């Protein structure tokens, strides 16, 4: 017998609690924005400028000792965090040292790096420095602008494409779902204070792409069913379409999550934040394509393209015009 995540025939009422789910989404979005406003994002050096040095040692990481060693250098804001990963060996102790951008210089000078490395070697002679990255304030400013531009452009491009392929109501529904996903992702990054860097922007855009993928598949079925069941209530059509595509939605989300979770666990700490964003995005994106995009569509109504009636039909009882 086949493995089935969803029974082959479902008739679940997705819009029964539509006020609830929609309200929940709104509350979650407001909460995310509040978290963003209050806690802010833990921006990486890509967006803030500064230097990160990854250290590796056979001795245990002593954050306090590191901090004391670096304090006399007068480098301003220095943060030291230990990094954990199941892939690390027993004698592999990794930490991340982050130094703020120094006054009046773009990328860090070799003297600063040498001083930091020497000070840390004093504390722990076995320490090595597998990576040093430094971004000047000029570039980080540009990266912020490009990142915002990228997300904005992606959403705009999608808006236009769906508008061309479907109707504007679909387009708005899809974009509402996208904004929902992006805002919620930013919210969780603010709440958990996970490092937000350039890779996370890539993850955000992937979420945009993925969430859309899901939404478009549902919408495609809605369009088809609107033509097939001309007299059916829009709510019924939407519900039917979601049920019909539910098995696929869950299958694809599940295989994608399988792949992402293995990457999350085994892929190393360097990309963990990035993968986390995508896992979150897949879950939120799947939810939003069912509960946000379709809800918006239901609220806006759809003009059925064969309709000749003056009021536009809007998917209500007036839409029962024969072809």
């Amino acid at each position, binding site marked *: 017998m086949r493995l089935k995540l969803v029974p082959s025939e479902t008739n679940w009422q997705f819009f029964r609690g539509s006020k609830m789910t929609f309200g929940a989404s709104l509350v979650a979005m407001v909460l995310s924005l509040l978290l963003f406003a209050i806690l802010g994002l833990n921006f990486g050096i890509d967006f803030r400028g500064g230097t990160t040095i990854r250290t590796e040692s056979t001795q245990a990481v002593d954050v306090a000792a590191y901090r004391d060693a670096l304090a006399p250098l007068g480098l301003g804001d220095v943060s030291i965090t230990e990094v954990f990963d199941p892939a690390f060996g027993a004698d592999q102790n990794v930490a991340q040292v982050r130094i703020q951008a120094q006054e009046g210089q773009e990328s860090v000078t070799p003297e600063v790096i040498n001083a930091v490395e020497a000070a840390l070697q004093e504390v722990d002679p076995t320490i090595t420095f*597998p990576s040093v990255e430094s971004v000047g304030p000029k570039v980080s400013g540009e990266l912020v602008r490009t990142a915002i531009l990228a997300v904005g452009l992606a959403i705009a491009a999608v808006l236009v494409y769906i508008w061309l392929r479907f109707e504007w109501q679909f387009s708005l529904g899809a974009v509402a779902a996208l904004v929902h996903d992006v805002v919620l992702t930013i919210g969780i990054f603010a709440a958990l204070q996970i490092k937000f860097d350039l890779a996370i922007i890539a993850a955000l855009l992937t979420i945009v792409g993925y969430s859309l993928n899901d939404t478009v598949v549902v919408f495609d079925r809605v369009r088809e069913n609107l033509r097939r069941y001309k007299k059916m209530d829009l709510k019924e059509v939407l519900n039917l379409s979601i049920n019909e595509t539910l098995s696929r939605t869950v299958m694809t989300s599940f295989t994608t999550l399988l792949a992402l979770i293995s990457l999350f666990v085994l892929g190393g700490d360097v990309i963990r934040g990035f993968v986390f964003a995508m896992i979150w995005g897949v879950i939120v994106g799947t939810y939003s394509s069912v509960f946000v995009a379709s809800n918006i569509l239901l609220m806006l109504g759809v003009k059925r393209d064969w309709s000749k009636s003056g009021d536009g039909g809007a998917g209500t009882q007036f839409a029962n015009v024969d072809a």
Partner: protein
Amino acid sequence: MLSIPLWNRVVIWALVAFGLLFAMPNAFYSRVEGHNDAVKAIEAQASTPELEAARGAWPDWLPATIVNLGLDLRGGAHLLAEVQVSDVYADRMDGLWPEVRDALRDERATVGTIRRMPSAPDALRVRISQPEGMDAALRAVRDLARPVTTLTGVGSADIEVASDGDEVVVRLSEAEKLATDSRTVQQSLEIIRRRVDEVGTREPNIQRQAEDRILIQVPGIGSAAELKELIGTTARLTFHPVVSRTEDPDQEPGLRNVLYPSMEDQGVYYILEQTAVVSGEDLTDAQPAFDQNGRPSVTFRFNPSGGRQFGTYTSENVGSPFAIVLDGEVISAPVIQEPILGGSGQITGNFTVEESTQLAILLRAGALPAELTFLEERTIGPELGADSIAAGKVASIVAFTAVLVFMGLSYGLFGIFANVALLLNVGLIFGLLSAIGATLTLPGIAGIVLTIGMAVDANVLVFERIREELKTAKGPARAIELGYEKALSAILDANITTFITASILFMLGSGPVRGFAITLGLGILTSVFTAIYVTRLMIVMWLERRRPRTITV
């Protein structure tokens, strides 16, 4: 729909075979890499048995392009440098001064005596003693203007001449500034490339970015600081007549003279004539060597015109000192013992062997036309890169296995078809990555893993649709046909939208993020291809052979 013509089948399988052929070298990465290096080395120099052996490890007739590994996987240094393009304006003004002087001298009767005044570095100010002759002066200087030699600047002159009281002010025009900037960046790029090539690392990536930036990525180099030392030094070598020697750093050097510190002795300064006798631009060669006392030094040779100038100067000034200056520091100031006519010489300073070797490289590669500031630098150790590759491999294999098993359990035989397509899909991604010479980064690996998860989507859409069509009992062939037909628009719409975001990411992203966009984008292309063509062809072939009365998907 279900009867696929033979030529169609041939094309599909040929494309798959081709893709896999190009992907194959990646499975033997180190062997192919050794082969490629050996081929290059044999071309460049004589062949040795070891090189021949390395070359023989991979047959010549097989494709030997492999995916480039990004710095985050291979380890190396990354720098983003900004060229201080306006540095060059001052040089241009200095170069213009003799011409302006001569032009105004010809008009001496109307403009009187002339004198160069201090000014901003990008302007040339000349005072004339008879301000009523200003019109004539302006005319004379304006005659020196040349048309700008660029496509966009056609019709405009290279300098702008204006009057300010009793001074003639010469500036570069905007069009000329643009043209100069572009040339400066281009020259800097060339010189950086030469310097990096001199060190001889594998496949450095040096490219221009935006207006005035240069991105330098060198795999295998120990640290960005090391790379910075190599390319950040201007390495402008000049030879100046010495006016005097002093220990007061604040001493006024006098008009058209400069004060430079000594590299060797702390607290010693030289006052030199600003105009150099000869400069490093006239060097044809420089090599590290040792002087007669066994101290590290650099020998150099001038080109004919440089040699002549140097010869004339040294013949006329036997017994007086001259200074060898590198980037505003006096390396040494020997006294000229005899005329140096052979066009070659030796620089001895307080060098270590490494320093003399480095200096020779820098002199050979030429001086940077302008200073560089570094906006961004990253060093990734090779161990960290190796760890990332190992982690990526394990994660991909686990992800792969999980998806394969899950698909098999969910769709049975059809799931197996989808799995074969998925395997081909990853092969094709690598084939395409190699063929277009793309770079694989850590986020790129994440993109592949993500694709593994998402690639089954197109097949899932079709299979789910076939299941639905089977419910209305039309027979297996018809159901499969309808399944493909009706799922197509959803597949296309869903993938085109994702592809749009991947493209935006590619256009706006940089470095690792771009690597992610590439694998994601290619993954979309190959997964649509395998789902629409390859899986369908497999299903059709199976149908033709078995002719089943019923199917379960």
